[in-house]
């Protein structure tokens, strides 16, 4: 491991930890944007807000960013496509469809909404995978991408139908806000739901990061290098999608993290998975937490998190592309 990678792998977790600590004091109480630390001892409301609201929300934001960053990095490398993100296998659209179904027909039950979103997210993956197996042309990666597009489109159509049926005064605003993504309703119970899904998935991905570069090779080459490519790829994809489904079921549709963060990590740490993947995980956490801090403290009303991640994600992506173009000219 070169010095740059080593220092990044020490620095990024430290930055993330520092940001989590700072986040506990960022907010609108008692005055935006900063709460003096002494209020933790002096003000009971400030104490409750910090432990019951800001801390679980910050934890959820970190888990969200880590899951999407890792998922994006894994899928981009496995599918050898830099435009892939965790949602592309029908996962995000499936989760959105499941959530909308729950909001419309089960009154957005706290238990049923994430459950329904999670079930439909995994159904999206299962459908994409099954459909890809039955396609008769192209390589495995191409078939999976095409199947993912088809399944996403089907769920999008279903989602559109549900939106047209929603009560504009009651259900549609909730649905719209959920589709734009946000951590406004997160409590410790959500964090308890996320941890057993996201942490094992991240562990699997981290432990297998040494294999990803080989798995990205074509079937024959990977096999000749002694890798059971199909099984290992399936395990990695399942881990990435399970983590994504879990965070989407809690936070709604939060775009761009899975696309942008792996690109930044590769720029910073190099293209090899064993170097850039941990970077993606830490950077994902930092990016999501930074955006969420702004979402909850910039205005009296919540700004949907998906709007901020899209805004900064798109800007960041444009900067990366422009820098890439300049470097290639030089």
């Amino acid at each position, binding site marked *: 491991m070169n010095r740059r990678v080593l220092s990044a792998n020490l620095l990024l977790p430290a930055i993330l930890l520092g940001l989590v600590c700072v986040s506990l004091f960022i907010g609108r109480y008692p005055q935006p944007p900063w709460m003096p630390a002494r209020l933790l001892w002096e003000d009971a409301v400030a104490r409750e807000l910090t432990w019951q609201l800001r801390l679980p929300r910050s934890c959820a934001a970190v888990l969200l960013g880590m899951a999407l960053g890792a998922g994006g990095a894994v899928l981009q490398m496995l599918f050898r496509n830099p435009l892939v993100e965790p949602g592309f296998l029908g996962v995000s659209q499936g989760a959105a469809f499941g959530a909308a179904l729950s909001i419309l027909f089960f009154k957005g039950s706290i238990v049923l909404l994430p459950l329904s979103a999670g079930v439909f997210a995994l159904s999206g993956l299962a459908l994409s995978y099954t459909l890809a197996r039955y396609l008769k042309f192209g390589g495995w990666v191409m078939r999976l991408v095409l199947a993912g597009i088809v399944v996403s489109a089907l769920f999008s159509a279903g989602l559109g139908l549900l939106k*047209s049926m929603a009560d*504009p005064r009651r259900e549609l*605003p909730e649905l719209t806000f959920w589709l734009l993504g946000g951590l406004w309703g997160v409590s410790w119970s959500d964090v308890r739901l996320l941890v057993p899904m996201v942490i094992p998935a991240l562990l699997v991905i981290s432990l297998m990061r040494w294999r990803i570069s080989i798995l990205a090779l074509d079937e024959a080459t990977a096999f000749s290098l002694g890798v059971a490519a199909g099984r290992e790829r399936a395990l990695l994809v399942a881990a990435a999608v399970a983590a994504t489904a879990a965070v989407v079921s809690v936070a709604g549709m939060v775009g761009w993290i899975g696309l942008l963060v792996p690109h930044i990590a590769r720029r910073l740490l190099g293209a090899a998975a064993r170097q850039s993947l941990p970077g993606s995980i830490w950077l994902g956490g930092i990016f999501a937490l930074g955006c969420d801090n702004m979402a909850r403290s910039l205005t009296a009303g919540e700004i949907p998190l998906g709007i901020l991640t899209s805004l900064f994600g798109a800007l960041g992506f444009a900067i990366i592309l422009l820098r890439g173009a300049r470097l290639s000219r030089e």
Partner: protein
Amino acid sequence: MTQLGRARLDMGRGVQFASGRPGFAAARMPSRPPSVWVWQRRERPAPVRALNRGRNPAAWSRIGFSAPRVAVAVFLIGATLAVAETSPLTLTNCDGRELRLPEPPARLAVAGRASFMIVHAAALFPEARDRLRAAAGGRQLRGANFDFLVRAGRVAPDLEILGAEVGPEQLASRHPDLVLLKSVSARLGDALAKVGIPTFSFDLETPEQYERELVTLGRLLGNPSRAEELVRYYRECRARVAEALAAPPAASRPRVLLVQASARGGARSFSVPPADWMQTRLVELAGGVPVWRAAGQGAGWTVVSLEQAAVWNPDVVLVVDYGEGDTEMASLLRADPVWRKLAAVSNGRVWTFPRDLVTWDQPDPRWGLGLMWIAKRLHADRFAGLDLWAETIAFYRWYGLTETEVAAQIKPRLRGDWR
């Protein structure tokens, strides 16, 4: 002809007035819809009968009344009314645009977002039954709401309820003379204008707009007198609340947070209405200070966090639940460790907005009841004599319901902290 026919039927019912009811219910409300006596006064040939029953026939003949002249006069009055019935109608949209119709519309459709508000307002007029032919509707127009309006005779059983997102093509196929929309559905109005279907926009978002637009609705439905009666009722609601608050002036106006609680957000997050919506105005009229005014600058409900609620630290929290109006959300707030620290919760001043068929906070005919409920909650000492049940009975007379019918049809549906 249909209206004249119904007017004659109505004439036989006579005129009854409520009397001796406590609080607001003792207001000057007719027990039948006021159109009954309005129609009597206008169309029954009362002047002729009065002349014939005159105490001094000689005096009448001295000023030139005779049977042929009276017949001519009656003919002229009838002809005038007939012409008025088919004369062009000029109305002003909520955005100031004028709409000219060659004759009063016989086939009305209601479409666009929150169309149930227009349907419920139109249903205050008995004429809506024959003229409303189709309406786009979500849950607040279907099911029990629709059944109630049909049973009350305010919409026809065959009123076609279209999908909530009905488009110009589906509407055109119903051949409406006019489509009524909320102003937020201006795009649909533009699309309908392109296929030659006139539209009329309502705001119906504040008490003032509501009263103004009831007058327009009265003209559209051919019953302006009914509209005047309705406006008088709502103004009286406002005036009685204002009077109770004014003398002597309320010492302190409680800081109120009205929230639409989301089941998804649990007790942790909720939405507040825009500053220019009915809910905000109702809190102001009821003598409260809406603390969310600065946050509610959008076009719809704005999600805010519990942290923001802690910053506002309201004296009173009013919870709106557009689901079943259950008090579960208020219970959640009372149990939440952070909410418990806020003044409203620790003082036990968290209440769920009442609802029967719909929640009383909306720009729906029930907003008068909503105003009185808030006022009583915020200033219990000043509204001790206000009996909300009597007010509910009085309100439902606009739909022709008797006290027994209100008790049978409405009372079982009352939810929230309405008592």
